[in-house]
């Protein structure tokens, strides 16, 4: 798929007004990734050393394997960091460029999912689910009665019937 010219942005990784990918890549994304990896794997190493042992056994203890993995991860993260600092970064050609409306859709979809997770136990599946499906359909660009009312109700009914009646799993 090729980027279209439907979005405009000057942010890294997003397509520009002409739909072209950036030709140069900044250094900070790889450095941020590497620093995050160093922090996470360093934490794993510290937490692994803090694992409480109820009894000392010969050979490897429950601490050993996580400690090894933490140390391996930290070593690899440091290699990533050095590479990010030393090597000239290349533009990311593996992923399609993001779009500003895409970011908005993503954040709204995550927010809707979190809201659904909170509301579902407080109400009932048959109440929360159609609202959730309708919201996500609207976020995706769906409009009209068929997309925002009929489809969510049918989807909820199908899921409810499948789980409660066929699979005997209460929702």
């Amino acid at each position, binding site marked *: 798929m090729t980027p279209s010219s439907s979005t405009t942005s000057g942010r890294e990784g997003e397509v520009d007004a002409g739909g072209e990918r950036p030709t140069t890549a900044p250094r900070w994304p790889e450095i941020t990734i590497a620093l995050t990896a160093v922090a996470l794997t360093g934490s794993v190493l510290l937490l692994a050393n803090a694992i409480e042992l109820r009894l000392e056994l010969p050979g490897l203890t429950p601490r050993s394997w996580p400690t090894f993995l933490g140390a391996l991860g930290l070593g690899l993260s440091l290699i990533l960091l050095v590479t990010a600092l030393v090597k000239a970064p290349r533009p990311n050609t593996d992923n399609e460029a993001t779009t500003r409306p895409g970011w908005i859709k993503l954040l709204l979809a995550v927010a809707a999912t979190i809201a659904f997770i909170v509301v579902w*136990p407080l109400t009932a599946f048959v109440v929360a689910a159609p609202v959730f499906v309708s919201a996500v359909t609207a976020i995706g660009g769906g409009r009209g009665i068929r997309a925002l009312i009929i489809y969510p109700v049918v989807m909820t009914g199908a899921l409810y019937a499948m789980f409660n009646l066929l699979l005997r799993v209460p929702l």
Partner: protein
Amino acid sequence: MNPLESGLSAVLDPVTLLCLMIGLLVGTLVGVFPGITGSMAVALAAGFTLTLEPVQGLAVLLSIYVGANYGDRIPAILVNTPGTPAAIATTFDGYPMAKQGKAGLALVVSALASTVGILVSMVVFIIAAQPVAKLALNFGPPEMFALVVFGLTIMISISSKSIVKGVLAGAVGLTLGTIGRDPITGDQRFTFGLNDLSGGLDFIAVIIGLFGIAELFDQLLTHREQKTKPISSLGRWWPTKKEYKEMGKPMALSTGVGIVVGIVPAAGGDIAGLIGWDRARAVSKNKDKFGKGSIEGITAADGASSATLGGSLITTMALGIPGDSVMAVMIGSMIIWGLQPGPQLFTNNPDLVVSIAAIMIVATVVSLGISLVRMRGMVKLMDLPNYYIWSAILIFCVVGTYTVTNNMYTVIVMLISGVIGLVMKRTGFPAGPVVLGLLLGPLAEANLRRALLIDGPTIFFTQPISAVMLALAAVAILVPIIAKVRAARRGTVDPGSLEDRLADRTQREAAESKSER
């Protein structure tokens, strides 16, 4: 009843057959919609099948696997967009055929090649799986540990553009596998006093997050309106005698390629399709027709990618190492049903192995039937707006995950895994090694500790099988590193992962073939 009768009768049960038909329908639909992969669909369905009997659940999951393998060829041929990565090579000759008014013929040739590929690979599975499992029964702790390391490194070398990021992803997966109680002493690790974590991270929630939610979020992030109208003039359907004859040689070659690639842990239909197309072109008398609508080309691509299914099953069921990403999900579901894929499966549940083979064969034959019925309805489905698919995937992910434990905590794990998966995807960390690490981590740790306790560290290098597997694992990691160093010295472009290199090369060659006209 002997295992053969018992396994077959379980498949012929009406409920199992109904599950199989549902799975095929879902799988075909999944294949038709570009962006929904087989692993994503199987991960989603895993949440729904856990309450079923194992054979019924496997009927759903395996038939999705088979159905997606047929459905993904439809958009590849009609809109030049592979429904799943396994159909990349189908586009090389399928779409040019469709543009020449031979879309119907391309669909039939593709379906026939896929059917032969799967059925031959299933014969190999039936013949080879038990001897492989018997051999694996002799594996002790050092061999099992070496096998896990081998599987993980192969997946890293195949799927990662950056070996460092791939190994790091594998290490993260192995670390996630340590969360919960220690498998030998029962000590709590990384649980932070939370009761929900003492049983470990829920595997299904993590894979639905990494394969389902992350992919969906990425589509939301990058989607642009694009309308490529499917080719509607399908033309004639059935090949002539001459065309059947043309299919023979590439069929035989590509099926062999597909089975071998399928056996390699973590290598799937995308790689096999590309290699199969490339090799068939190399030995063909009509090289110049490849990429321009060659029947040999489409036969080779689809025969090879489909033949990986049986090879992949051998590795998964006989060794307990996933043959591809769909099989990784399958192993997770089987573990939840109390079944451990691997050599013990053939001893403890021989009837289930028979059922698995029977499900695959029945699903393949039925899929061929569905493919030969002129699927104008399926083609119309490609016009369905994305917002319906996105909202359906999201609600299925949430509900499917919730039903695994009936606990909202599992849904939260899935959502967090999805966000992490998206970040990984955008930053070049492959998700496959994380899943494999999480899945096989406890097995690796337990066997490492046993081996060291019993025999000490030298045992890994004095036992021939473990020594060979560890050596192969080292080669799998070193070869891409050496290739990168060489490319850097020559000042050429980073060669990327094996998948990238194969896709780049064959796509370039297919484009060159077209421009030579």
